[in-house]
């Protein structure tokens, strides 16, 4: 019940991604950092060593490095669906930064909120939706209800009479 109070959404993608060709949803990445302060040290490390490789591996992302003096560093990701995701990366090492970048790259930009269903389909039924006449017994047009001959209870076991009669029939056929 507590899940009701938090925002939720259904599973979706931008522009039916993955049906035609895959489009990387991360459009633009801005790395904001400071040149002086200690908390931007990991980011500065990353910009010196890993940023060019990242940009080369992901040519579909426009990467910017922006100096913000005496501000804590952050990764600002802009997605094709128009949403922005900001990750503060103060005091983070270069290796960890790369993981966060990977996370931003593989995302679609939708909000990280509760998914109501783990599946989305455009064709919920292929053999036809259920109706009361699905798999219903077909009666001839002149059939009238009630008809007790067709709807007698199933006999799953033989009654004592049935057994006796069967035995009797057997014995009479043997004697014949």
């Amino acid at each position, binding site marked *: 019940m507590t899940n009701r109070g938090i925002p939720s959404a259904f599973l979706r993608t931008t522009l039916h991604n993955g*049906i035609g060709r895959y489009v990387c949803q991360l459009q633009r990445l801005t790395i904001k950092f400071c040149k002086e302060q200690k908390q931007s040290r990991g980011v500065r490390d990353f910009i010196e060593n890993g940023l060019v490789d990242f940009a080369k591996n992901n040519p579909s992302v426009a990467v910017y490095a922006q100096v913000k003096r005496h501000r804590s560093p952050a990764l600002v990701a802009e997605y094709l669906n128009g949403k922005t995701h900001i990750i503060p990366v103060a005091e983070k090492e270069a290796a960890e930064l790369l993981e966060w970048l990977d996370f931003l790259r593989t995302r679609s930009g939708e909000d990280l909120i509760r998914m109501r269903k783990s599946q989305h389909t455009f064709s919920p039924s292929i053999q036809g939706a259920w109706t009361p006449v699905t798999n219903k017994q077909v009666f001839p047009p002149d059939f009238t209800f009630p008809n007790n001959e067709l709807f007698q209870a199933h006999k799953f076991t033989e009654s004592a009479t049935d057994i006796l009669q069967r035995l009797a029939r057997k014995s009479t056929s043997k004697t014949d």
Partner: protein
Amino acid sequence: MALAKTCCGAIKRFRLELPNFMNPPPITVLQGARTYKQHSYRYNKELYRRRLKVGPIEVTPRSKQLNWNEDVELEAFTHRISEKLSRVGVRQAFTDMSYSRSTAQLVKEVIGDSVQGQELDALDTSAGNEQMAESGDNLARKFIKDFIKVQFPHLPEEGVGSILEFLMSTGKLAHVGKHLGITDLILYDVPLVSLINEEQGEERACAFVRDFIITQLIGEDIDAIFPITSAMTRLVGLLEKKGQGEPISRLLEHCGQATAVSCYFVGIYSDNELIGKAPGETLEIAEEMAAHDALMSLYGIQENRLPFDFNTTYKQYGILNSGTQPTLLSSEQH
């Protein structure tokens, strides 16, 4: 204070939708609040009045912000759609005629006489994307038409037309363009088709249309795009044209036929063969819906039809240059 904050948020959010100064939105008191705080009402009203006075916030285009490099963005865009396009071409495709004209005008005003008239004319026509838009539109329309004809061979011409119009409508193209990230670059993506055609060939251009425009058909009801009106009359005409027996409707089943909420299941037979069945609240509705169902199966647009084949590529001569019915020539994994 929390109440005041929520109300302020509400006011800001709805501000642009309610331009009338005389009718501020009603400020609701939260349910369960013990008192009605007059000061907060007055405070919010005053805030609202001031907000209106300031006027709408100016929207800064993304390209006017600091972290913006047009070359980088264009390069990223070409990689995003997995095409190898020249930067000059993309820039031209993204330049609207009105923009290029105004630039030319500006050039004329600034440097005036030193530029020759012919050069100015060249600047006028070459920088815009009008021609590209036109040829791209033609190519996309042709390909979409052929694609639909391959996927729905039995659909009548008007149906093909309405699906085409649905896909090539300005709203749909703007939607596609927006989600490919070209909002800050341009407003229309059809010139791109022409550009890809010039630089990469027709097959890639068609693949672009297939992957980004035709995929918009997914999840749409074909019979909502192409509404089938007076189904029974159509069905009679179609069956007569095909040389089949005339449709005969039969009541298959019913639920509570003597009640106000009855449901009838009607089947339509032609030459002793069930060609469509549907439920309905009355016999007339059920018959009409059954005819609709039969028509959908005859047109090949029933719900459980084969899905679109987005992996298929169409060879150039097979689909684009022949006047005959297009055929599926090759299939390869994208």
